[in-house]
């Protein structure tokens, strides 16, 4: 099947469809620990070519997987069963910018940070800012409904997508929304965002751009206990403030980061909070004063306010370097992503420490505290016999503890393959059937990124795929 498909597509795509072992190996996985198998890899440069690829795949009954930069952490872009990988990174133009109404049409391969850089001279940016924003694509952001530290005040990707041009799995083209705010009919674009490549491939995306804040204050507070830090987070929100970002790092994480970037971070603190307030100057200063008072009332040992842009950048570098810094501790890591109600943060963090200690694993916590979005980072050396089993077992317990605390499976990484079989922790059979119905309406043939998100039998297929490295 795949050979005939490749022969057909090669007529038009020539060098832009590849079946060499290097390409097939490269595109057999995303940034998760889960490997799959690619049958062919193609690089379309236009909507018409994407249509041609999907029409042919449909005719040959070959599944396909859309892929952006491949930074996903849940196996969402990992191809299974020798699927056709459709790489969207060559469709990377910003098509138009309307700085007055603050929106832009872009191709899906545009990198997240590149878009913000290209509209910076208008005083605008694209608000979702995943930690991978230097390398992740807008198309991938749409597929995963990506978040980031600044989504606390500005919302996740779904709040910043106005419309899309989408190629469905039969190769047909459909407009979902546009620049209009609330078009008549069902909100198909809202349904498409976060569909993890299982509803079709977006080839043009209309994004909302956000005004840069005139005033920004960034501060670091440190605490003698994780509980004090977590209670400060809840108290800030309950006091009626929504900071631009509210991030927490625990002691092991601070120590790793400090050894890496030398930012004079308090390495003896149990937890530090990075708080950013943005907006108009008087409101920002008033909020900063109230936040410091709340921190002090909850036992903050010190408050460091960035004095200039360089110091602000350094504090953020500390937060965003966590994943590089851990290489000093162990060579491998497994990053988790769950959300809990803010008031449950102290309890669930205690459970995370207890679980990892029981499994003899080291854990660093660096996370979006304002959203209750935990990111326990398990560090290990996979050459140690039996360590992967302990990592996976601890991970499952962390997910279960989060859901039991009234939380959800994933805040921004998505379900993909990684958490597919955990979906029943949150959803009953009727709930999963409704999600399966959405999928069938968009892709009756079941060829778009099959076997992700929905556990069988809600998925369109009866084969239970469990690739190596997936959690089971």
């Amino acid at each position, binding site marked *: 099947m795949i050979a005939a498909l490749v022969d057909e597509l090669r007529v038009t795509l020539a060098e832009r469809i590849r079946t060499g072992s290097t390409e097939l190996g490269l595109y057999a996985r995303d940034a998760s620990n889960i490997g799959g198998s690619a049958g062919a890899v193609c690089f379309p440069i236009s909507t018409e070519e994407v249509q041609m690829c999907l029409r042919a795949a449909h005719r040959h009954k070959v599944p396909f997987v859309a892929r952006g930069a491949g930074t996903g952490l849940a196996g969402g872009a990992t191809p299974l069963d020798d699927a056709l990988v459709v790489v969207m990174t060559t469709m990377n133009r910003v098509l138009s910018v309307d700085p007055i109404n603050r929106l832009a049409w872009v191709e899906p391969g545009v990198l997240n940070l590149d878009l913000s850089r290209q509209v910076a001279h208008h005083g605008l940016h694209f608000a979702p800012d995943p930690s991978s924003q230097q390398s992740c694509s807008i198309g991938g952001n749409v597929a995963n409904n990506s978040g980031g530290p600044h989504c606390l005040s500005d919302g996740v990707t779904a709040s910043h997508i106005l419309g899309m041009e989408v190629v469905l799995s039969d190769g047909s083209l459909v407009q979902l929304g546009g*620049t209009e705010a609330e078009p008549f009919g069902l909100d198909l674009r809202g349904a498409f965002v976060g569909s993890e490549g299982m509803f079709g491939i977006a080839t043009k995306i209309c994004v909302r751009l956000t005004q840069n804040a005139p005033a920004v204050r960034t501060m670091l507070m440190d605490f003698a206990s994780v509980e004090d830090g977590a209670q400060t987070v809840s108290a800030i929100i309950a006091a*009626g403030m929504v900071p631009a970002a509210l991030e927490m790092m625990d002691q092991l994480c601070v120590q790793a980061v400090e050894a890496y970037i030398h930012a004079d971070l308090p390495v003896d603190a149990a937890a530090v909070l990075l708080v950013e307030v943005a907006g108009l100057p008087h409101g920002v200063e008033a909020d900063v004063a109230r936040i410091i008072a709340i921190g002090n009332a909850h036992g903050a040992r010190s408050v460091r306010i960035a004095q200039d842009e360089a110091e602000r950048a350094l504090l953020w570098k500390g937060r965003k370097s966590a994943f590089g810094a851990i290489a000093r501790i162990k060579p491998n890591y497994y990053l988790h992503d769950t959300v809990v109600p803010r008031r449950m943060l102290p309890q669930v963090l205690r459970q995370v420490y207890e679980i990892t200690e029981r499994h003899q694993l080291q854990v660093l916590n660096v996370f979006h505290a304002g959203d209750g979005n935990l990111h326990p980072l398990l560090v290990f050396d996979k050459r140690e016999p039996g360590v992967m089993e302990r990592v996976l077992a601890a991970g499952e317990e962390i997910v279960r503890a989060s859901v039991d605390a009234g939380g959800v499976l994933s805040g921004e990484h998505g379900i993909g393959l990684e958490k597919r079989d955990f979906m029943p922790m949150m959803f009953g059979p009727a709930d999963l059937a409704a999600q399966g119905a959405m999928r069938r309406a968009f892709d009756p043939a079941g060829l778009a990124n099959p076997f992700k998100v929905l556990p069988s039998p809600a998925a369109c297929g009866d084969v239970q795929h469990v690739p190596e490295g997936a959690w089971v």
Partner: protein
Amino acid sequence: MTDLAPFADAVGSDGAVTITGLGTRGGPIAGVRCVSAPSGIDSVQPDEMIVCCGAGTPVNEVKAALATHGQRVAIPSTGTIGGALAVGHSDFRRLGDGPIRDVLLQARYVSAAGEVVKAGGPTVKNVSGFDLCRLLVGSRGTLGFLGDVILRTRPIAPHSQWFSAPTTEPYACFARLYRPISVLWDGATVWVLLEGHKTDVADQAATAGVQPCAGPPALPTGSRRVIPPADVARLTGSFVAEVGVGVVHHADAWTPPTPDARAVELERALKNEFDSTGRLNPAV
């Protein structure tokens, strides 16, 4: 959580059925058996910025309960929560608040089969599965009848003030403002709603050249048009337009543009999946 079993029993699994709240958005379909969703606030959780309530709860009841905690919810102040979500129209604060579809975090609804189905989850950040909540908002009760919901709330700003100025060029004013809550324009006058710290609000108004005023203008009710925001400058007739959004309240009737044919097919496919016999709010 609300007990949805009696509501599910009332919806049943057979025969045409319609739903009504307070009847402010057109009411139930005539001649069809009618049900109502449960009413009542289950919990207000200010430190989680959420409120949980029955879909039949009046919007103003929810707003009053939230106000005692200094919070609000971005839903138009008429009728019930369920009705507002089912119709899916944001109000004139959409520019600053974002669309109503961003407010619904979790819904439990009764399906065409009479089953209680959960969509979404209780936290603001959540990408666990497909976004069924966004599909439900604006679906006019054709995919399922909302039973209870968890909504995202926001703090009430310390200061809120309307301003206005005569102008035929609303974009000059719009460009000078930082994240205004609302900018309305009728072809001759611009009205601006600013919120935040009192001094910031005054400074912004001075920068934009607008003067304090009593409030927004009355919105014409002939049609609620949704147009590309760039087309607002070309409007004619008697209207009040939401600048930067493209929602236009016009005195004259309007026929919306024909939607993309393939999108209409997708809508039919979704309806067929969720309610193959067309029993929920038939002919809507």
